[in-house]
């Protein structure tokens, strides 16, 4: 299958897509978005500084048709979802999003109902557009760099006015081996401070459920789950999080989940390896104390 990856210059994201591409055939070609060196080696690579999907669709559709790509791979991210539907409709191509399994015979799996079910599809037409859920495929190591051909965007329709990157102190959520997440049960934004302290001692990152983000207690970049960050830490602490399927969808590949919840019936205990049924106000300070003693 002649495959094209479209992705920002982020080695882990590109690496995951290279892995998927190799399941379907040879190493894919790459359209790298953004500035800087293009990591990894590809039969063909293009580079475009533009990262606004709306401005890319025309050029990308032409490239796919001109070079006869049969598969287009994107990550299931804001950029991926912004390109996939429009590109699919332009090319009259099947679009499958949030894919978690790919087989060489073009069968793929994706979750439905917040991960409560998984559907398997056999793709018949091509080209096909797939967005791949993060953290389900081991990123291929990208060696060396590639001199990429310039890919130009003509007459952009959407203008970037400003960009705000949320500064994370310490470890990035998506790379963290230890994550301490808080939910609606935290009760306030101020109460997240204990989670930050705990994460600091464990050299981990702080995450949140959609419940906590909707309350305005945590930034949306901290959200873990199906529509937030998909993470795969060694240990995931879920504090005051009920364990809705859409939240669990974001931690499917976490190795060990520790749940702290005052409701013993909470669904999070069904996913947890270790559970503490209590008010977190009692347990988290004690855990912080124990971590301090160890240092």
């Amino acid at each position: 299958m002649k495959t094209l990856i479209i992705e920002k210059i982020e080695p882990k994201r590109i690496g995951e897509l290279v892995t998927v591409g190799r399941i379907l055939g040879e190493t894919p070609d790459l359209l790298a978005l953004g500035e800087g060196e293009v990591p990894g080696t590809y039969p063909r690579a293009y580079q475009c500084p533009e990262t606004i999907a709306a401005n890319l669709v025309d050029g990308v559709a032409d490239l796919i048709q001109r070079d006869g790509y049969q598969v287009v791979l994107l990550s299931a991210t804001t950029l991926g979802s912004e390109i996939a539907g429009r590109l699919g409709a332009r090319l009259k191509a099947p679009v499958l999003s949030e894919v978690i399994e790919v087989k060489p015979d073009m069968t793929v799996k994706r979750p439905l109902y917040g991960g409560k079910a998984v559907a398997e599809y056999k793709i018949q037409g091509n080209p096909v557009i797939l967005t791949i859920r993060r953290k389900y495929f081991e990123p291929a190591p990208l060696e060396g760099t590639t001199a990429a051909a310039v890919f130009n965007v003509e007459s952009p329709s959407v203008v970037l006015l400003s960009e705000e990157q949320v500064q994370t102190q310490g470890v990035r959520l998506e790379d963290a081996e230890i994550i301490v997440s808080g939910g609606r049960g935290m009760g306030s934004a101020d109460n997240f401070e204990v989670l930050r302290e705990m994460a600091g001692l464990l050299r981990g990152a702080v995450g949140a459920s959609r419940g906590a983000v909707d309350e305005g207690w945590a930034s949306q970049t901290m959200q873990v789950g199906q529509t937030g960050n998909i993470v795969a830490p060694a240990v995931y602490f879920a504090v005051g999080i009920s364990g809705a399927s859409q939240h669990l969808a974001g931690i499917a590949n976490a190795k060990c989940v520790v749940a702290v919840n005052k409701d013993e019936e909470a669904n999070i205990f069904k996913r947890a390896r270790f559970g503490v049924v209590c008010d977190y106000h009692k347990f988290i300070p004690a855990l912080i104390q124990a971590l301090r003693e160890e240092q």
Partner: protein
Amino acid sequence: MKIAVLAKVVPDYEVPAGDFELAGNRAHARYTRMIGLYDENAIETGIQLKEKYGATLGIVSYGQSEDVPILRKAIAMGGDSLHLVLGESDDPYVIASNLKIALEQLQDVDLVLAGQQSADLDRGVVHGVLAEMLGCTFLAQISRIESDQGRWTVCQNHESGSRMLQFSGKAVLSITSSPENVPRIPAVRAIMAAKKKPVEKLQGTDAPPMQVEEVKVEIPKLESVCEFLPFEDMQETSRMLLARLREERYL
């Protein structure tokens, strides 16, 4: 200004995994039906634009007649009219083609708002397909919208932050949730009034679906292996937890 919001009626998305059951390849019909979570954020955003700019707000859905009483909530929240295209397909191309029928009937819609993703198929595809069919701009995960002399300024939330984008002309925007668009709870009087509002029902069309075969849908097995730690002495429990995490080489 004319705004349309796309709202899909879905089975209760809060059913816990342990109680979830399929009938064929879809959720069992016994679950309560409701408007999708993100679609409610889109409705709320639409109402706020209506209040700010004096826009009219049409609610557009593709589904079955039984969905009407559920969709009336969108009118009670502040929508002006309800337009339902009748059909049963789950294919994103078929759905988008049918939503397009209702939008064309509404005429000169300036802005179409959709949820970030449907709360049953969790796909995030229909809105982009629709935008392409309508030949207009599409932007994903928008949390704020402002109109200024024919131009739109919007805030897009993405994985590592947010950005302000500007464009002119018609657009389809997918709406993400934010503390500013938590759906309002309609007042009883508004709920009663919404029951009397006329509903436009449109006959659906057979558009070509994508070339994909749905082979099967299964419920993944959830193995529960939780070891509950004692909670009498928190200091002791904390030390025990850390020891266990090290023992099993997680830390």
